[in-house]
């Protein structure tokens, strides 16, 4: 579904502060509290939006991360991506076309833990042919208001 202007205005308010109450959002937008409640219900039911907690990676000790790019046997690629998606350490994984078949982003509380996930959990999966592990050294931008809601 596509969102309309009222939906977008509500989303915008909740991007500034997702903990604003429906009453506060209603007051800012000049609509009724019931409208806010209904719109949010509709957006969440349609899996168009969710309210999410985002914590600072550094403050929470998530000091290690990597893009893990995988070449895999074609018939195993989807199953490998699904298995990686189950890892709490994985925030993104998808099938890709190009040089790789799967790309995942993995975070960990230490480099040792990152190495363990890559070596002991991903590299050993059936169908994994080759891993290309790339480590971030800094982030110039990281939008956290777009996601995929399954």
């Amino acid at each position, binding site marked *: 579904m596509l969102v309309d202007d009222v939906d977008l205005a509500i989303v915008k308010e909740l991007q500034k502060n997702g903990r604003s109450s429906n009453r506060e959002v209603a007051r800012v937008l000049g609509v009724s509290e019931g409208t806010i409640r209904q719109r949010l219900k509709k957006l969440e039911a349609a899996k168009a939006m969710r*309210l*999410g907690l985002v914590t*600072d990676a550094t*403050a929470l000790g998530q000091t290690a991360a990597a893009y893990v790019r995988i070449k895999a046997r074609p018939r195993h690629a989807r199953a490998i991506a699904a298995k990686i998606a189950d890892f709490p350490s994985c925030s993104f994984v998808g099938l*890709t076309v190009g040089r790789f078949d799967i790309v995942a982003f993995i975070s960990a509380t230490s480099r040792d833990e990152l190495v363990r996930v890559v070596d002991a959990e991903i590299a050993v999966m059936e169908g994994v042919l080759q891993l290309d592990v790339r480590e971030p050294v800094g982030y110039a931008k990281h939008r*956290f208001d777009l996601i995929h809601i399954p």
Partner: protein
Amino acid sequence: MRSVATNSTARPDAIDERILEELRMEPRATSKALGLKLSMTEVAVASRIRAMEAKGILRVVAQLEFRAAGYNILALIDVMVADRKINEVAEALSRIDRVGSVTMMLGDPPIIVQVQAADSADLHDLIVNHIAMIPGVEQVETNLIIDIAKWRTGSAQLHPTSLPG
């Protein structure tokens, strides 16, 4: 009174951790509800949440399904850089609207950007007319995501980060 430091290395304590755990499950839970659950006063919960927000430890935000936001294409692009500082190129990439993240890497490629686009023509425009036009961008390699198994953002660098607009 608690002092509110704007220190990026500020770490949550054990009580903060319990509040974060609850907020992870129910981001809009009221301070009153959280207080009842954690045997704390509403005021104590609210002030801890405010302090964590002020320190840049947490944010509760509306997160849009990228398709609902009008995008249909997601890609990760390796950006090779020549004759210019990597962080200058990264900074310029950050200012492009359809660029979702810009990550500077150890070794090659020096930068990986995540982009979203409405369709393949829009992706082509983004690459050819915007990304490739940045001075210092030597070469790009696009990895098109054809199926997203998981994309959720519960953790980010909250300090350099900003929302659009």
